């Protein structure tokens, strides 16, 4: 422990360059005014504040940001991006970091419900071009393993009651709608090399 206190901070400025090449977002423009963090509605659930994420990127601390809870807590409300006086698209950085964690296999659907939901959602689009809410929610519960957690905490029954209430108000459709040109949708999604990793996480 004493060692860490004495160790000089290792800084890798290359990361900021890499992020700019990939996204066009310039983290080096940040002067730490913390406007992003002050306007963020979800800081109460974050491990690093948005300004800290920007700072960590600037210092090259890639491991910390890619493993942070913050990137998945961000709801993309765009308040930070809108208010940044230096035109840094902070919500865009969060998206970039989520994509990188996904692409590198750092994040898994089990244990990260938000990631599990995004994956199931994209799979649904790939399947028929439109999202079928009723089926989506079931697949999400299975894929994330959340049905077990919900069963244990007793919240599954509340969800089922809500589902029934929606169904009886005819707000949960029985059958999916899809686009006619499914092949075209598949080509939009599968062309990207980063998307190839959607298979195989059932094994973990």
């Amino acid at each position, binding site marked *: 422990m004493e060692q860490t206190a004495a160790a000089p901070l290792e800084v890798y400025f290359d990361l900021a360059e890499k992020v700019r090449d990939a*996204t066009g977002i310039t983290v080096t423009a940040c002067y730490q005014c913390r406007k992003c963090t002050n306007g963020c*509605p*979800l800081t*109460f*659930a974050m491990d690093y504040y948005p300004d800290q994420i920007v700072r960590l990127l600037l210092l090259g601390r890639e491991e910390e940001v890619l493993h942070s809870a913050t990137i998945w*807590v961000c*709801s*993309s*409300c*765009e*308040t930070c*991006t*809108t208010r940044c006086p230096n035109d840094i*698209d902070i*919500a865009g950085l969060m*998206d*970039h970091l*989520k*994509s990188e964690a*996904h692409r590198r296999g750092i994040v898994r659907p089990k244990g990260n*419900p*938000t990631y*599990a*939901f*995004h*994956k199931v*959602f*994209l799979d649904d*689009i790939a399947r028929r*071009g*439109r*999202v*079928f*809410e*009723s089926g989506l*929610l079931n697949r*999400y519960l299975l894929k*994330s393993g*959340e049905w077990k957690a919900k069963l244990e905490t007793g*919240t599954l029954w*509340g969800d089922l009651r*809500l589902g029934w*209430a*929606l169904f009886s*108000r*005819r*707000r*949960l*459709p029985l059958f999916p*709608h899809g*686009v*006619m*040109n499914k092949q*075209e*949708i598949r080509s*939009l*999604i599968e062309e*990207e090399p*980063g*998307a190839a990793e959607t298979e195989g996480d059932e094994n973990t």
Partner: protein
Amino acid sequence: MHEIGYYPGCTLQGTARDYRQSIHDVCDLLEIKLRELPDWNCCGATAAHSLDERIAVRLAGRNLVIAEREGLDIVVPCALCFNRLKVAQKRLLNDTDRRYGMPLEGTIQVFDLLDYLSRPNIRQEVRDRLVRPLQGLRAVCYYGCMVNRPPKMTDAPTWENPTNMDELLADLGAEVLDWPFKTDCCGASHAVTHPDLVFELVRKLYDRAVAQGAHCIVASCQMCQANLDLYQERIGRLAGTSYELPIFYFTELMGIALGCRRPDRWLRRHMVDPLPLLRSVGLA
């Protein structure tokens, strides 16, 4: 008769069926012909832009290509779809290094439904056709995030304090109250994955709306409406209170004020029953 392209989005075929029905009824009455975009697809929503920016732009972009082919400006009721289509449009029109491989000419416009229905000519028409002023109804307007932010993408003229819904509802005769949470986030799709976060954000909205003296909250986004309506009883129970705040779509209130037949067809699909409130002010 105006005619405009229409991109309904996936939720309007499901959980936001009430929104869709009220939109169709109001547009019929105002003689706005909505021409649904042929073979439209999902805009990609939060999932696509979180996992792969290029897929996100291409998914939303396909709809813009269709709209251009049809020669149709499009109106979008879902705030998130609107946002994704606007982002895709900006990216594709500035795609100098052909990253997306989906050329766009820039011949069509994308409108958020609230923005479209609160333009001066339509507001004039609404005032002319008003049959049932919403007198006695005290409302706060809840715009949410996606129709306004970031303004560079949405082209919104006033993003911190939008007023178009306030003005439209005032035209309908409602008593519109000012409040500071017009554009605060409801937590969106965290409702599925981290309901605790949504409950925290939404409870603040209720408390503030009640403190302002509002009878109801009016939304223009079906994610906001769902998060405020579906879990209200649960959030109330956790907070040791009962809010009983109906969450209207702005189109539902337009429909009531313009005299649409049987507004209960949409209203009965809500979780928080708006009929007692409407009866108490003589509107049902």
